[in-house]
């Protein structure tokens, strides 16, 4: 396939990630600082006595991952190349920079490259006094059947995990308490997405996959990992019922459950369409007697300029709802 010209605002493709980070630090000096290359931490880190949350992953998914570093959210992020894991060294530098002596939670998506590098970082750092525990986002029901939940990849639902774990840690909870809340959230968290167009990696200069106009791919991953089904592009209502059915069947959520819903845009899909999709989803959930207590609609985990959307459901209890509503502040996510 011939390299197609990229309609991108970039300089050297190789410089993409570092220039993005430079721009970010120039734009948000009161929020973020960089103690080591491709490592960002909250400007006020380390916070003594607070559980530190360290995350990381590939670039190209803004606001994932670095957009979730801030007050009431994560403390540090190791930033990988586009769509690829950060190194163990970066992760351990991130850990050093935010360790406040109260324990560290590694919270990130379940991708084998990331898992190995976080594991290695944890081993490198295990000389320290601080306990390190790991929580993986593995919310995408399209990536493995029931019974194999641990093999699933993480997609946009991780935004809810940052929110609840970050709020809990900000309250001064212990590492075990933070993990417990994140685990409970994760147990009731399910997602699934649909892609309507590919994206173009700056260094590759061509589309990550082919998807003919008029088609869509259900269950595609945020790096263009193939989905479970390709077919005719359906209406918003059909897509909503497709996604709702599979997500609901998986847990299963029960009549009377209360949920927070995340309708996430993958990059190019206009916010208007996300609300059209949410409207249909809301009616699906109403029919199933599931009450939507909170709705996040927007871009929370993207794939560069991919078109499409994903839907995440988080089962709520009183504490999770409180943590979802708690204040937070990063350059990408603010709650008052």
């Amino acid at each position, binding site marked *: 396939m011939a390299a197609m010209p990229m309609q991108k605002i970039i300089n050297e493709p190789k410089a993409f990630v570092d220039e993005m980070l430079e721009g970010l630090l120039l734009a948000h000096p009161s929020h973020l600082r960089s103690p080591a290359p491709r490592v960002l931490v909250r400007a006020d880190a380390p916070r003594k006595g607070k559980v530190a949350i360290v995350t990381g992953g590939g670039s190209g998914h803004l606001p994932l991952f670095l957009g979730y570093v801030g007050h009431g959210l994560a403390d540090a992020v190791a930033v*990988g190349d586009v*769509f*690829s*894991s*950060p*190194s*163990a*060294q970066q992760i351990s530098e991130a850990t050093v920079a935010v360790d406040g002596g109260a324990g560290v939670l590694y919270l990130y998506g379940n*991708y*084998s*490259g990331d898992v*190995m*590098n976080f*594991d*290695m970082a944890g081993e490198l750092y295990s000389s320290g006094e601080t306990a390190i525990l790991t929580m993986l986002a593995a919310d995408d029901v*399209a*990536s*493995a059947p029931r019974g194999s939940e641990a*093999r*699933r*990849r993480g997609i946009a639902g991780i935004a809810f995990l940052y929110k609840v774990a970050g709020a809990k840690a900000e309250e001064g909870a212990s590492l075990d308490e933070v993990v417990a809340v994140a685990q409970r959230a994760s147990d009731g968290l399910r997602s699934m997405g649909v892609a309507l167009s590919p994206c173009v990696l700056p*260094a*590759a200069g061509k589309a*990550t*996959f082919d998807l003919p106009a008029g088609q869509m791919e259900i269950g595609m*991953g945020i*790096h*263009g*990992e*193939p*989905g*479970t089904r390709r077919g005719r592009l359906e209406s918003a209502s059909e897509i909503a019922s497709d996604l709702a059915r599979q997500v609901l069947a998986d847990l299963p959520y029960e009549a009377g459950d209360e949920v927070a819903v995340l309708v996430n845009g993958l990059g190019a899909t206009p916010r208007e369409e996300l609300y059209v999709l949410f409207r249909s989803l809301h009616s699906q959930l109403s029919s199933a007697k599931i009450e939507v207590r909170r709705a996040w609609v927007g871009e929370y985990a993207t794939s560069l300029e991919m078109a499409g959307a994903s839907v995440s459901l988080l089962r709520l209890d009183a504490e999770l709802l409180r943590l979802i509503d708690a204040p937070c502040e990063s350059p990408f996510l603010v709650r008052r």
Partner: protein
Amino acid sequence: MASSALARALSAAAAALLSKADDLNRLDGYAGDGDLGITMSEVARVLEEESAEVGTNGPGAGEAGGTGAAQLLSSCGSAIARRAPSTMGTLTATAFLRAAKAVASEGASEVGLAERCFAAAMEGVQARGKASLGDRTVLDGLDAVCTSLRTSLGAGVVLSEALRSAARASSLAAEASKSMVPKAGRASWVPERALGHPDAGCQALAIALGAVAESLEEG
């Protein structure tokens, strides 16, 4: 093996991997994220740069095994870990770091050293990646290579012949992976899409080893 010979072998592997980058992206794309060619190209650039540093007069260039080769393998491993931290990159880094320790061991023939290196590499990959044999990963390729090298060691053949057999074994393993169902990594998410194509990681191993074996025959 002298570290200069090792350097030649690694830079042959590098050239082969670079030339097959598109194929590797394609294979990884059937059921993965289509970036293995990018990863292995970065690995290749590390191998080239580190091998070039050794030259023919590098440290310990003349020794069999020993510190020269160990140093080369270990600096490759560290650089790969830093520069190519994807699944395969990280596993490759682990393999080099483990091999670096093994190559420094004493009292073995050239083939024996090679066998120890690959056995250590495989152990490292298994510990880091937590895949099982038969999961359709590069581990299956490494297993085939180790078996072949053990056989060659028993048969007492010379290194070039041992590596030729090992390369052949890794090719066969890649071929065999075509009908295996992926149970680890990205490909396990849509296992049916992988069928009919060799596992990308196994294929990368076969490409690298094929080039290494050839480089020894010439050298």
